[in-house]
């Protein structure tokens, strides 16, 4: 089969690889009908995530049709359409029973390495680093889905792929980021990053009733899309984020701040951004935490920082004193996708939101490598890419 395969930094190729097979009675094989390139795939593309190996199949946003099931699979059958969440979950461990699916204790098959690096393992993820199990991803024609009765969300109501595909990652990720802000009607929610996750954060914050939603970015088309979703926008190339946020909140700062940027923050001309660039280039720091610093600084005391943006390792010069003195609450983590999928599927069904708004590019798998570059460089108005294998 054809798949998008990681061969190193900035080196993604369309390779012909062996078809996946059932390895465990709980597995299913899914024929992928639509996949997407995620912003966090770009961290792999840029070589910032440890534990990748040449030959790894990429992709953790995908859906398709079940073509084969293992002997222990009861709920799925051949022909079922499923969206597959990016987190592989067992549904039985202590964390899964609490709904903390992204830290499932069972599914990371490289648990010992993860234990050493993070202290404790987290869930297995598709198409990501070997620190999260090194499972082959879904930017491929077929994919093996472990624990097939637990994670996949069955789609039965005639939705198009594009209407439901993002239930596997970016929609629940934006939703969880807003939910864990516990938005109150008088809240201002400031969201750094107007990429796909940032866009879903904006819509989620609006739907959850925030008084004011502010989107911070530097890419004109992303800011335009943010405005379409109901956000006031701040263009970091043209204005001071801190000054503008204070202006919009009578000098008090936003109650809730969301980092939908993560480890590759860009800032225009700030001293700390230049410092991070140098430290990252000399391998003295793995992640660039400009957004975290700014959020801590500008957030209203006793406010909440919600961090769906991906961080991979070590950060430097984070004003922890301010975080402590201001009594900020920090909530972060990979998304507990299955905790939200039923509710969000219902909201799509009830037409509260149509997730297709975010798609700007649709390509076949052969154009995948080119689209990684286009998406990374934010060229051609690219915000979200779907791939049809």
């Amino acid at each position, binding site marked *: 089969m054809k798949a998008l395969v990681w061969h190193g930094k900035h080196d993604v190729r369309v390779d012909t690889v062996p078809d996946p097979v059932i390895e465990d009675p709980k597995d299913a094989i899914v024929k992928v009908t639509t996949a997407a390139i995620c912003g966090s795939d770009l961290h792999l593309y840029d070589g910032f995530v440890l534990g990748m190996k040449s030959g790894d199949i990429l992709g953790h946003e995908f859906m398709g049709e079940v073509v084969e099931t293992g002997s222990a699979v009861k709920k799925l059958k051949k022909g079922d359409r499923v969206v597959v969440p990016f987190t592989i979950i067992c549904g039985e461990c202590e964390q899964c029973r609490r709904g903390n699916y992204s830290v499932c204790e069972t599914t990371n098959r490289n648990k010992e390495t993860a234990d050493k690096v993070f202290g404790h393992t987290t869930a297995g993820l598709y198409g990501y680093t070997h620190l999260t199990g090194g499972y082959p991803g879904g930017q491929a024609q077929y994919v093996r889905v472990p624990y097939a009765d637990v994670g996949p969300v069955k789609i039965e109501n005639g939705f198009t792929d594009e209407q439901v595909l993002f239930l596997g990652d970016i929609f629940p990720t934006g939703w969880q980021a807003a939910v864990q802000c516990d938005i109150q009607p008088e809240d201002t929610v400031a969201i750094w990053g107007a990429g796909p996750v940032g866009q879903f954060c904006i819509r989620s914050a609006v739907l959850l009733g925030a008084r004011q939603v502010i989107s911070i970015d530097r890419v004109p088309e992303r800011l335009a899309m943010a405005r379409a979703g109901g956000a006031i926008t701040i263009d970091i190339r043209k204005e001071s984020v801190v000054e503008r946020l204070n202006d919009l909140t009578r000098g008090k700062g936003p109650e809730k701040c969301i980092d939908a940027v993560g480890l590759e923050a860009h800032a225009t001309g700030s001293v700390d951004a230049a410092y991070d660039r140098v430290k990252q280039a000399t391998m003295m720091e793995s992640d660039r935490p400009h957004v975290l610093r700014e959020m801590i600084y500008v957030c209203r005391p006793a406010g909440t920082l919600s961090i769906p943006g991906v961080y991979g390792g070590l950060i430097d010069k984070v004003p922890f004193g301010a975080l402590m003195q201001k009594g900020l609450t920090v909530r972060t983590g990979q998304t507990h996708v299955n905790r939200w999928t039923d509710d969000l599927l219902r909201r799509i069904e009830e037409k509260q939101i149509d997730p297709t708004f975010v798609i700007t590019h*649709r390509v076949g798998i052969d154009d995948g490598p080119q689209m990684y570059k286009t998406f990374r460089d934010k060229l051609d108005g690219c915000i979200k890419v779907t791939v049809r294998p």
Partner: protein
Amino acid sequence: MYEQTLEYGSIEYQTGDGRGEGGDTMARGLGWFSIALGAAELIAPGTLARALGIPEKEGLIRAYGVREIATGVAILKSEDPTPWVWGRVAGDVLDIATLMGALDADNPRKRNVEIALAAVAGATALDVMCGRKLSSEGGGPSLPLEYFERSGLPRSPEEMRGAARDFEVPRDMRTPEPLRPYTTG
């Protein structure tokens, strides 16, 4: 609702000439170059002046160092580096004028001056190229209207605000009671 018009297997969508990242990247490079050159002029003005056969101009070279650093920092710090890049071009003209003055037949270091002039001419060409690029990028390309229409919501955001208030935030994600606004208890 946004009408889907693109097809799989094609990359047809165009927004024009990009957003001008090229000019900004080049400007940042010139900013760092300016700081490095300025630091050299500040730290070792005497050595530079002697190498160019103009030991009496040590003070002037130090002043040029301050100018270079200030311009470099301004390019890196400003939201729009265009005027500062053109400022570099003006600085280049000063440098060239100073070097031309040293291009004297009796200057024993004339060869060094010629090399320095060639280097400054090269830097000037880059500065002009960058300045022109930034100026032509101006306010950025116009965006297709459709981005402003991609709300994903069935009605205006104002009408949709709070449509999901029926959602109950799970207990583990709620704001601790003492941190909640008094108005909502």
